[in-house]
């Protein structure tokens, strides 16, 4: 049970970040590596803010804003300075590493165990009945993830959201609509990195510390979640098992959240089978490789019938 809760908690935290990666990878078709640094950016900001006595819920908004700013930087470097997409992400990722350390007061590790967080505060202690206490964290995470998902779904159905989807689909159409495709990309990157940073903030409050290396491999986790989720629940070509079972179609955003939880479950399975925690990144990357290979295999099989 604790294991299951742990998987759910981890999965839901990273799901918020994966929603951001869904925007860049699936909608914008932009390989954005800056999430590797915006995730710890949110964590660093939150750690410092909590120590300074800022309301834990407020740190979520600050983190989103800071991440969005970093996303803008990636976008501006790509659009205005015409640097290639991958490189713009790498530039921001590398630069933010130092900035994150500065935000955290020059320390690579900042514990905030003693501070109030969104998971542990007087309000919760007073209002949550004792029987529910072990599930409080999961429920709070579920709420945060659900709010992010619904907001993203709503946004994607606004005029601005339509334009965002159009720019990844067909850039020249956006130009035909008399809109600057560069601006649209910047907006997309800002939202994506905002989500990543928000996830970092939640992570920091959940774990009770900030650590500079938490961001390493974030993009891999995000991509894996997106690919698993989409392949599993709403594949682009072919029918998902949901449709075969006669179940309703799910939105890609839901699929991404499920993907994140499934991915974390796989990782935790590998660890419970005797892998060491030090092997975590190795497992992460190998699992990602397997997912990539499997998802392309399936595409090949489907194509002749399509």
């Amino acid at each position: 049970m604790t294991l299951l809760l742990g998987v759910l908690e981890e999965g839901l935290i990273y799901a918020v970040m994966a929603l951001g990666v869904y925007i860049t990878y699936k909608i914008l078709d932009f390989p954005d590596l800056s999430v590797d640094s915006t995730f710890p950016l949110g964590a660093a900001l939150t750690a410092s803010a909590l120590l300074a006595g800022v309301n834990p819920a407020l740190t979520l908004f600050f983190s989103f804003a800071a991440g969005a700013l970093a996303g803008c930087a990636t976008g501006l470097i790509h659009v205005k300075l015409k640097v290639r997409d991958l490189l713009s992400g790498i530039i921001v990722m590398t630069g933010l590493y130092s900035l994150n350390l500065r935000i955290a007061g020059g320390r690579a590790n900042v514990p905030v165990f003693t501070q109030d967080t969104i998971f542990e505060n007087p309000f919760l202690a007073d209002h949550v009945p004792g029987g529910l206490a072990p599930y409080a964290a999961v429920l709070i995470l579920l709420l945060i993830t659900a709010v992010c998902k619904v907001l993203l779904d709503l946004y994607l159905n606004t005029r601005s959201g339509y334009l965002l989807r159009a720019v990844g689909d067909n850039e020249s159409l956006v130009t035909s609509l008399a809109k600057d495709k560069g601006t649209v990309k910047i907006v997309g990157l800002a939202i994506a990195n905002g989500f990543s940073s928000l996830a970092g903030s939640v992570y920091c409050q959940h774990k009770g510390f900030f650590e500079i290396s938490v961001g390493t491999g974030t993009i891999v986790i995000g991509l894996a979640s997106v690919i698993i989720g989409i392949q599993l629940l709403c594949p682009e070509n072919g029918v998902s098992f949901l449709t075969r079972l006669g179940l309703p179609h799910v939105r890609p955003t839901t699929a991404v959240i499920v993907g994140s939880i499934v991915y974390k479950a796989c990782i935790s399975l590998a660890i419970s089978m005797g892998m060491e925690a030090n092997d975590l990144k190795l497992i992460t990357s190998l699992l990602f490789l397997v997912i990539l290979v499997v998802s392309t295999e399936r595409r090949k099989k489907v194509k002749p019938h399509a």
Partner: protein
Amino acid sequence: MLKLVNINKYYNAGTVNEMCLFQDFNLSVEEGQFVSVVGSNGSGKTSMLNIICGSIPVDSGAIYIGNENITHMPEFRRQRRIGRVYQNPAMGTCPHMTILENMALADNKGKPFNLRRGTNKKRVDYYRENLKALGLGLEDKLHVKVGVLSGGQRQAMALLMSTMTPIEFLILDEHTAALDPKTAEIIMELTGKVVKEKKLTTIMVTHNLRYAVEYGDRLLMMHQGQAVIDQAGEKKAAIRIEDLLERFNAISIECGN
């Protein structure tokens, strides 16, 4: 009125592959005129359209719409007054979005793309009517993704979408070239109808000499960055396909082909 004045355009300037495309090229298109443009490959037809739309920069010269100099206006800003349909049917629509969403996108051109609902429910009937006029049965497939439609259906949608909001110029870049003869015919008829209804100033590049002769009230034949035929009005109406072919052959011999 659209005016190109003393346009110079070189490709690969300063290298051994330097190629002069336009040298002091001039063109002026009256309001409401429908210009058909023909010419061999590499004669500068599509480059001319790209220069008008701002897809490629000019080396020198000026482009005017009315009295306004738009030479340095970025491409997306020019598109406010221009509708463009490309040769590739995939260029004018978003494949992963539904027909309805595509129509809504096109309908919002010129309006702010803010946080209001992407698809205005009150406009759905209007979209349906417009699609019905195409006669392709698209009005019953509003929630189908455009990516699964055929090239002809997509091109019809692209034409519809590019002329949905008020524009001044319609730029057609070999827009029937990738379609089968029957579909091409349908799209061409549709084009004629739309241009007449909305009184658009139109420039159509085509390799189909019959379309060039049948449609439009002015005909240009391009060769090496120059207009070797430029006839309007009655003289244009008198041009036959054979005349064009003859000229094509003469040019070919001149070039040593």
